[in-house]
C-alpha cells in the first residue's frame, strides 16, 4: 500500500522537503522508463507521460514552478530549485515534449494573457492533455528572428494567417501554438508590427511536416499556414507588441529550464566516470580530460545558481548578461563533453541505438547525446549570436 506523501507541506524545512521528494520519487519513478520509452510508439509514450504527469499532479508537482492561482504548488523559488535538483538526481522521467507547455506558455500567459486566456488554456497543461508548440522561427528568419514574414491580416473578428514556421518542437503533437506573425508590414524597424497569437493547431489550413533530424528522430517540424483563421480573442497583448512579449516567452529558457538540463548532466556526468572506472578512467589522459571537464561543469552550475538567485531577487529578469554567458558556456561544454565520451568509449559508443523520445541530452546514448548538444549551440540563439551579444551589447565593442 502506497504511503501518502505531503511534499508541499514540508516547505519551510528543507531537509524534510528533500527527504519527502526522495521517498516519493523512489516509489513512483516508473522502473526502467528509459529502456521502455526507447523506440516506443507515439501513443504509448504519450500515455506514459500523461501517467507520470498525473502522478506528479497528485503531490502537487505537475508544474512545480507555477503559482498556486494557476494550479501550481506555489513553492518558494528555493524549493522549486530543490524539486528540479531532486528530479535530476533521481533521473525522473523527462518531459521535453511538454517543455513549451510547462515553461513557455505559462511564462507568456501569466504575464501577458487575459484572464479568459489563462482560464481556458492552463488547465489543459496541468492535466497533460494539451501539448503546446512555438511558432517563432522561419526558414528565412532563424538567428535573425525579427525578420519573420508570416503575415496576419485582420478581417473582422479574426486574423487570417499565411506563412511558414520551422524548428517547432513537438508541433506534430501539439494542440496549440504560440505564434508570432506580422500584422503590420510597414513597421519602421523589423521588430515592429509583430503580433503574438494563440493558434489552435486543429484549425483548417495548418499543415505540419516533421523534420527528420540527424539523431534519426523528428522532434520538431515545419508548420505551413494557409489562410488560417485565428480569432481576435487569441491575440496575446496588444497588436504589434509581439516582439516584446516574445522576450518573456524566451526568457523562460534562462532559468529553471536550463537549470534542469544542467543538473541532469551533472547526474549523468557522475555516473559516466564511475562506470568507466575499469575502462577509460584508467587512462591518464582521459582521467585528466574528465577531471578538467568537471571544473567546467561546476562553473556552469554555479553561474546558473547565481542566475536563480538573481531571478528570485528580481523576477523581471532584468540582466541579459548572465543568461548569455551561461548559454555560451553550456552549449559548447555539453558538446565537448559528449564528444569526449565518444572518443573515450570508442566504436561501441558509435553504434546506432533507438533514441528515447521526449528526453534531452543526458540519455547516455552516446552519439544521440552528442548530436543533441547542437540543440544548445544552434537553437535559441546560436553560439555565434551569443558571441555577438557578449562583444557588442555587453562589452560595448563596435558593430562591424
Amino acid at each position, binding site marked *: 500500500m502506497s504511503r501518502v506523501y505531503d511534499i508541499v507541506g514540508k516547505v519551510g524545512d528543507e531537509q524534510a522537503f528533500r527527504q519527502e521528494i526522495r521517498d516519493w520519487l523512489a516509489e513512483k519513478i516508473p522502473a526502467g522508463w528509459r529502456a521502455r520509452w526507447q523506440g516506443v510508439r507515439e501513443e504509448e509514450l504519450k500515455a506514459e507521460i500523461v501517467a507520470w504527469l498525473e502522478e506528479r499532479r497528485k503531490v502537487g508537482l505537475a508544474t512545480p514552478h507555477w503559482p498556486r492561482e494557476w494550479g501550481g504548488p506555489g513553492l518558494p523559488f528555493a524549493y522549486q530549485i530543490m524539486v528540479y535538483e531532486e528530479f535530476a538526481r533521481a533521473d525522473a522521467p523527462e518531459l521535453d515534449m511538454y517543455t513549451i507547455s510547462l515553461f513557455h506558455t505559462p511564462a507568456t500567459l501569466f504575464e501577458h494573457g487575459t484572464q479568459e486566456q489563462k482560464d481556458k488554456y492552463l488547465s489543459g497543461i496541468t492535466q497533460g492533455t494539451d501539448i503546446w508548440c512555438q511558432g517563432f522561427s522561419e526558414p528565412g528568419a532563424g*538567428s535573425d528572428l525579427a525578420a519573420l514574414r508570416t503575415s496576419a491580416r485582420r478581417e473582422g473578428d479574426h486574423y487570417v494567417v499565411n506563412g511558414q514556421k520551422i524548428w517547432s518542437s513537438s508541433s506534430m503533437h501539439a494542440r496549440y501554438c504560440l505564434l508570432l506573425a506580422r500584422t503590420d508590414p510597414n513597421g519602421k524597424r523589423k521588430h515592429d508590427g509583430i503580433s503574438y497569437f494563440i493558434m489552435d493547431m486543429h484549425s483548417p489550413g495548418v499543415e505540419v511536416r516533421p523534420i527528420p533530424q*540527424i539523431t534519426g528522430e523528428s522532434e520538431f517540424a515545419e508548420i505551413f499556414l494557409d489562410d488560417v483563421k485565428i480569432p481576435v480573442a487569441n491575440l496575446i497583448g496588444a497588436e504589434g507588441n509581439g516582439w516584446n512579449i516574445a522576450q518573456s516567452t524566451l526568457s523562460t529558457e534562462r532559468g529553471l529550464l536550463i537549470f534542469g538540463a544542467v543538473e541532469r548532466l551533472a547526474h549523468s556526468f557522475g555516473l559516466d566516470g564511475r562506470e568507466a572506472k575499469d575502462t577509460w578512467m584508467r587512462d591518464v589522459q582521459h582521467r585528466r580530460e574528465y577531471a578538467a571537464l568537471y571544473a567546467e561543469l561546476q562553473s556552469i552550475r554555479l553561474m546558473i545558481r547565481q542566475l536563480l538567485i538573481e531571478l528570485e531577487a528580481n523576477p523581471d529578469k532584468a540582466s541579459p548578461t548572465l543568461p548569455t554567458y551561461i548559454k555560451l558556456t553550456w552549449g559548447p561544454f555539453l558538446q565537448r563533453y559528449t564528444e569526449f565520451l565518444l*572518443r573515450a568509449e570508442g566504436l561501441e559508443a*558509435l553504434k*546506432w541505438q533507438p533514441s528515447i523520445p521526449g528526453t534531452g541530452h543526458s540519455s547516455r546514448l552516446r552519439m544521440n547525446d552528442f548530436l543533441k548538444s*547542437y540543440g544548445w549551440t544552434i537553437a535559441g540563439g*546560436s553560439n555565434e549570436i551569443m558571441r555577438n551579444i557578449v562583444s557588442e551589447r555587453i562589452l560595448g565593442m563596435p558593430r562591424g
Partner: protein
Amino acid sequence: MSDDLDLGVLAGSFAEMLDAEWPREKAVAYARADHLYAEDLWQQMAALGWTALTVPEEYGGLGMGSAAVAALHGALGAAAAPVPMLGTTLAVELLLRAGNAAQQAAWLPGLADGSLRAAVAQPGDTVVAADGDAVSGSVANLLDAASANILFLRAVRGGKPAWIVLRSDAPGLSVERHALTDTTRTLGTVTLDGVALDGDALIVPADAAALDDALLRIAALAIAADAIGGGERVLAGTIEYMTVRQQFDRVIGSFQALKHRVADHQTALVAARGLVEYAAGLAADHPQALLMAISAKQHAARAVAEIARDCIQLHGGVGFTAEFFPHIYLKRAKVNEAIHGTRPVLLDRIADMLEAA
C-alpha cells in the same frame, strides 16, 4: 613522374564516377533508410576494376600500391560511399603478405572482381582459438561483417597468432548485424559454432607482429585518405551553403568570424592532405612508412572530425536536419577516428617509435 600522373588521372576517374553515381542527394537519401551497403555502387566499382586495384596482375588485378589505395579511399570518403572497400584493401594486403599460394589463388580473383566482399578484423578484435579442425566462439563488432561474404578473423593456433578465413555461409557461422550511426558502414557480431576449418582457412604468418604492422599501415592510409576526402567535401559544401544562406540581410559567408573558422579548417585540410599523400607514397619498407601512416591517420581523422562537427554549426539549424548532408560526414568521421587504432593508441605507438629513433 608518370606514376604521379597516373595517380592524378586515377583519382579524377574515381571522383568522376562517384560524382555521377553517388551524388549528394543520393547520399542523403541513403542515410535515411535502412541498408546493408550500396550494392549497385559496389557492382559499378567492381566493373570498373576498383576492387582489383591492389590485387596483382596474375590474379586479375591492377597491382597498384598504397598511393593508389589512398586515392581510391579518398574518393570514397569524399562521396561517403557505403561500400565495404576497406575489407577488400585489407584482405588483399593480408593475403599477399601471409597467404600461401593456394590461398592467394583461392581468394584474390574473387576480391579483384568484387564477388568477394571481405571483413577483416581490427587490432584488438577478439582472437579465436583455432587449435582443432573446427572453431567456436564469437567476435563482436567486426566492421562490415554483415555485408561481407568472407571473413578474416584473428586467431591463435598452437599458441601462435594466426588468421582464419571463413565464408559467411559456412555451416555454423552466423552474423548478427549492428547498425552504426554512420549508416555507410555496419558492424556485425560473428558467432562460430563448430565451423570447420578447411585446408585454406588458416593463415599462419611468419612474423605476426610485422603482419599486424603492415595491415595497420594500409588501414591507416585508407582511413586517413577517407577522412581527408570527407573533410574536403563537407567543408566545400558548407562554404557553398554559406554563400547563399542569408541572415541579417547578408550571406552568412560574409561574416568574418565564420570565414576565419573556415580558413582554419581549409588550412588544416591542406596540411593534412599533404601528410596523408606523403605517407601513402612511401614504400612499405621505408623506415618511416608505418610512423607516417599512423601519424597521418590519427591527425587526419581528428582534424576532420572537428571540421565536420563545425560544419554542422556553420550550417545552423538545417545542419541539424537529416535533409542536409553534413551529418553524414560527421558520423563517418567519428567512425574513422574509432577504427584501426584510436588516437591515444596510435599516439602511444608514435611516441614509442620517436623514442626508438
